[in-house]
């Protein structure tokens, strides 16, 4: 079956070597995937959400045959992983390492024609396909210049074109809008949506919540090598509908946020730095009842409140509720259960 992905209890454990002085070292097992199971239906635009180190790239590398899983099985486009790897590669288009997967001394056209040959297109087909993609992605003006003269965003576009060269029924895109400016990212998302409308299955990894929210039919939230939540965006939001979400902006110390996390009725908190101030997200069973105690606790702990507002549940809130942290790099998680 084309565009169908079935993952059953897929696990991956890395063996790493830990240095212990000049001559000593010991091996350590690091579980990166802990029995991931999911099914992606043909024609679906499926989002994989997770912070760095969550296991989403390991999962993608296993599905694209770059890594052998330690346990479990997967069937991609009707082909069994580790048994029919070549068939999986032939029926999948991948954009995994962004601009790094291209030959920078070659032009965009030369790169596309070369990869077309590796996907076994005939010489005429690979040239035509390269021409079509160059036109579709508006690369015409730069297509015959060496990639080393491109901007990072332009190279990302060529990498995206490379993923489309074999016209595969399944597309695996790993953070494809990284390094793209806002209009280019919007343009690329539109092409992804268009390809999905034409029937292609798309697996789209991202750490940008709004991207997953607006683009994906279903989303899996991955952290610590496990799928923590899976469903459509409305389904995931509905799972938090019983909770209120309060967003507080200002100058908030870690002691103040810990005190808030310890308040009765608070189910989860997360803190992140945004544009020079702190943003504290609080989830609670009853937001209205919590509000006076929340303000009192913050002011007692010398917090400066610039803005406080109840908010609609977002995918980010779902992520916070499931993982206890935001996707932002500088994140300190304060799970209420630990206080």
């Amino acid at each position, binding site marked *: 079956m084309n565009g169908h992905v079935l993952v059953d209890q897929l696990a991956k454990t890395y063996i790493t070597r830990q240095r212990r002085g000049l001559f000593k070292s010991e091996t350590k097992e690091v579980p990166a995937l802990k029995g991931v199971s999911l099914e992606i239906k043909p024609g679906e635009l499926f989002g994989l959400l997770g912070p760095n180190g969550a296991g989403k790239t390991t999962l993608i590398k296993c599905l694209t045959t770059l*890594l052998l899983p330690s346990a479990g099985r997967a069937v991609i486009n009707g*082909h069994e992983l580790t048994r029919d790897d*070549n068939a999986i590669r032939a029926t999948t288009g991948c954009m995994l390492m962004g601009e790094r997967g291209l*030959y920078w001394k070659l032009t965009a056209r030369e790169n596309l024609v070369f990869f077309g*040959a*590796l*996907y076994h297109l005939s010489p005429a087909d690979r040239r035509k396909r390269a021409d079509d993609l160059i036109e579709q992605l508006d690369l015409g003006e730069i297509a015959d210049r*060496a990639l080393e003269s491109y901007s990072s965003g332009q190279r990302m576009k060529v990498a995206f074109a490379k993923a489309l060269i074999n016209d595969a029924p399944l597309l695996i895109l790993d953070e494809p809008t990284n390094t793209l400016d806002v209009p280019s990212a919007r343009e690329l998302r539109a092409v992804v949506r268009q390809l999905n409308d034409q029937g292609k299955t798309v697996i789209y990894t991202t750490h940008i919540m709004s991207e997953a929210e607006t683009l994906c039919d279903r989303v899996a939230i991955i952290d610590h090598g496990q799928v923590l939540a899976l469903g459509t965006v409305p389904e995931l939001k509905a799972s938090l509908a019983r909770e209120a979400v309060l967003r507080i902006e200002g100058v908030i110390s870690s002691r103040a946020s810990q005190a808030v996390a310890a308040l009765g009725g608070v189910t989860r908190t997360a803190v992140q730095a945004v544009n020079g101030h702190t943003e504290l997200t609080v989830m609670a069973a009853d937001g209205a009842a919590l509000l006076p105690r929340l303000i009192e606790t913050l002011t007692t702990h010398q917090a400066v409140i610039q803005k406080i507002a109840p908010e609609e549940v977002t995918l980010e809130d779902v992520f916070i509720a499931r993982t206890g942290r935001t996707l932002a790099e500088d994140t300190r998680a304060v799970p209420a259960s630990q206080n």
Partner: protein
Amino acid sequence: MTHPHSRVGRPTFGQTLSAALAETQLRLINITRYPGQMVMEVVIPIVFAAMPMLLGRASGPDAAANFAANTGTTNYVAYLLIGSAVFTIVSGAFWHVAYWIRFEQETGTLEAVYLTPTSTLTLASGVALYSVIRGLTTAFIAYVIGCLIFQVNPFSGDLLVALLFVLSGLVPLYGMALVFGAVVLRVKESSAIVNLMQWVVSFLMGMFFPVSIFPPLLRWAALLFPPTWMTNGVRSALLGVGFFFDVWYLDLAVLWVFMLFAPLFGFWVFNRVERSVQRNEGIGQF
């Protein structure tokens, strides 16, 4: 448009050949964008050969006589130039195959080509063909220019037999290069390994001297290297220094035995290492 996935990852011979040639073409296009590299590859073998050549001339007329007594030819200019030209081909095989793996690992393109249904065997064949074209071209140009500079006839002797030895020696050479490619893939270290191996092999193959002057153990070790037979075969065909088995076709037969086993051994080692790397950190990890 022909749908590539209609054959579900099982390409025809024509598609495989086309992919291998695309790999060769990619590398040839790439090297034309580094013109200095080509000039360097022509100049270095001449300079390499010139150093012992000039030392010999500085040592007086007895040096040439001693050289002739040990090697069987008075044409030490061509002897040394053949050694350094064959060394260019041997060195190129190691750099173009083993170093290529490391370079592409670092630039990210190794993962990109592994995502395609083209097998490693096909890719390696394309790289080997590129290396043959590049190595033979630069070695030939360097040899001819070197001979012209030092005023000796580059085309004396049996050219056809010499060419047979060069072509027969290339196949086992790429088998060996694949083994070192596997080592590079495993230890993720290229420059030191490739540098060490190219010098060890150039020493054992008798780049500037006949391996007959080695102590017995080292001589036997040298005879296990296909480049030793390749170098001696070319020298014997062009300069008449003497084949190991006295007749050219027996020496060539030894190279053909290497030709049968070395590539198979190379691919076997490479596939095992490749699978092991996939089992742990992955192909693209560097």
